[in-house]
């Protein structure tokens, strides 16, 4: 009896504090050599220098609901610019009293996007839902029927414009990119060379050049009085640009396919289209989900370049807001707000792609 108690007492002696818990973890990971110790200390110093002032600025000293005059007197961040100006930042020049319309359009779009996240919902009815949703959004934005006042596309701006340019840009660019990739792999010399020339030409110039071409050079070739909508011109440029990059990503996937796959498809008697549709593309596109999504994310952010051709996308409306002398000094706050919106959009895409990858993972 006695013996057992001693053993129990011995086994319940705890290891020294210095090797378990927070201290132990810190010793093992942060201070395990003199070099790492110095790095840890330097990092802590940096954080101590940066975080408290930022918290002070952003939260403690900040103003949330005030006038610009109060903001100028205050030390901290002036988040008041957001409640004061959010409608202009989000909707730009869209007629003030009708701004519920682009708001509703965005809600529809976000709703559709979230609904489509679940692969169980991928049925024919979803395609119809998108079709109806897009038509509804277009009607809401444009108006002109059902008692809605007509609003010209030149007045569209802010978040709806950014989403419009990216969603349409990406959905149109993706199939085009896949076609270009297949064309580049084609054995027909005409198609192959056309695709190669297109891809290399587009990849050889920056997006800004394409936007300038579409907005400055292109109109000079049109006859007097004929003008193609500036948004459409930018949209086409974005689609052309993104498609070329997607094409190269998809080509990577196609080249990664083992020859056995082609041969197996052929031996089953499948023709070219069946081979591609049933065997090759499903696998190839799955492999390239990560690079495709990163391409799409950068395309979404690239839409902010339309600033230079004076389209009022989210970034431009923010800049215009900042040209109001009352709020001129508070650019950091406004840009942080816009950055958060961009982050939300991009994070949605990347988290969705991760999920899609997991769901489609067949262990190959």
């Amino acid at each position, binding site marked *: 009896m006695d013996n057992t108690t001693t053993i129990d007492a011995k086994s319940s002696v705890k290891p020294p504090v210095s090797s378990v818990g927070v201290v132990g973890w810190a010793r093992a990971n942060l201070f395990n050599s003199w070099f790492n110790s110095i790095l840890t200390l330097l990092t802590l110093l940096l954080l101590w220098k940066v975080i408290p002032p930022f918290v002070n600025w952003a939260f403690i000293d900040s103003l949330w609901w005030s006038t610009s005059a109060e903001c100028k007197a205050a030390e901290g961040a002036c988040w008041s610019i957001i409640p004061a100006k959010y409608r202009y930042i989000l909707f730009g020049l869209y007629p003030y009293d009708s701004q519920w319309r682009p708001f509703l359009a965005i809600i529809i779009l976000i709703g559709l996007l979230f609904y489509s996240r679940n692969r169980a919902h991928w049925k024919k009815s979803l395609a119809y839902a998108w079709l109806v949703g897009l038509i509804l959004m277009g009607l809401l934005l444009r108006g002109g029927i059902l008692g809605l006042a007509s609003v010209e596309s030149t007045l569209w701006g802010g978040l709806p414009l950014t989403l419009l340019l990216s969603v349409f840009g990406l959905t149109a660019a993706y199939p085009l990119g896949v076609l270009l990739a297949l064309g580049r792999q084609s054995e027909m010399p005409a198609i192959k060379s056309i695709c190669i020339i297109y891809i290399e030409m587009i990849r050889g110039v920056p997006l800004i050049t394409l936007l300038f071409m579409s907005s400055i050079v292109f109109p000079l070739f049109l006859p007097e009085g004929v003008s193609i909508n500036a948004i459409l011109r930018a949209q086409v440029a974005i689609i052309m640009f993104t498609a070329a990059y997607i094409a190269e990503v998809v080509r990577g996937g196609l080249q990664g396919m083992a020859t056995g796959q082609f041969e197996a498809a052929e031996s089953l008697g499948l023709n070219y289209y069946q081979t591609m549709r049933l065997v090759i593309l499903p696998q190839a596109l799955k492999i390239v989900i990560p690079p495709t999504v990163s391409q799409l994310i950068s395309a979404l952010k690239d839409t902010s370049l339309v600033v230079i051709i004076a389209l009022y996308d989210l970034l431009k409306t923010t800049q215009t807001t900042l*040209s109001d002398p009352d709020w001129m000094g508070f650019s950091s706050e406004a840009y942080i707000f816009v950055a958060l919106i961009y982050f939300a959009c991009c994070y949605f895409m990347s988290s969705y792609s991760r999920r899609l990858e997991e769901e489609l993972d067949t262990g190959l």
Partner: protein
Amino acid sequence: MQMKNWLRGKVAKAAVLIVGVLFLAFCFAGCGDSKKASELESKVAELQKTVSDLEKQNKELEAKKVAVGKTLENVRAKGFIQAGVNGDLFGFGRADDKGVWKGLDVDTARAIAAAVFGDADKVKYTPLTAKTRFTALQSGEIDVLTRNCTQTLGRDTALGLDFCQVNYYDGQGFLIPKKLGVKSAKELDGAAVCVLPGTTTELNVADFFRANGMKMSPVVIENTAELAKAFFAGRCDVLTSDASQLAGTRAVAPNPKDYMILPDIISKEPLAPAVRHGDNQWKDIVNYSVLAMINAEELGITSKNVDKMLKSKDPRVMRFLGVTEGNGKALGLNEKFAYNIVKQVGNYGEVFERNVGVNTALGIERGLNALWTNGGLMYSPPFK
């Protein structure tokens, strides 16, 4: 018989000879002729080419005439004026929170609409960047460019534009913190200068420093608001920009009293509305719409007293407001065009004070933009 034969042979020989000589002669003559003919032919071809060239030129001119000579008709058919404006420039062209366009340039466009349609609201605005503004006008996307554009010889000629009456005389100046202790721009040797890139401002300041044998280090920042922020944070000693902007920039400083604008103006920036080259009628309309605002101020007519002034017996006022007819017809407009401008938009003084004057955030004095009678440059030819 033999004789006969011989003779025959002779004749035949002679005939052959004659024919041969003649042939040769013809040949020579023919050769000469064909030479002449080919010369003539080439001349004819040349002339024909000249004629077709002339015809082509004529056609091109006709096409241009059709294209640019009908701005007024196009505008009337559309029912509104498409005006190119800045979009970001407080006091000149910018939409407020509710999307209502305001500014000196916007009011200029409104004045043109008031003149053409009798309704200042019949304007649609196209916001343009410094890079897209001229193309938009050249390609016919807009009817008039009222976007704080400096009139220069190059733009007026090579770019195919026509500038109208100046609606704002600007110039480039310097904003400094008072603690710099500088009284003139000539003392700025070695200064770090905050400047916007890609504008004439950047060139002007470089020229100014070089001309005065001084050194500068430019701090170039793309955006006006960011530029001001950098300046107030002390990243540069001096901020240079159009004088119209400096007052506004100073006003948004954390402590405006710590900053001053130097008296030196280093460039001439006459800001004027522009139209496409070659449409004189439209140019006249834009021109006299701006001039009408200036003339109204000179005659003491404001948006408030314009109805009373209709009963004035002053012949200048009567002609101006269209009580005595003639001006409108000459321009191809309604006789009441000047009345409509003043009634709906105001005279130049009102427009100036409303958008950029001392009571606005920009707080600009009239200065060069005062009437000539007050020592400024605003001068209108008589309306008669």
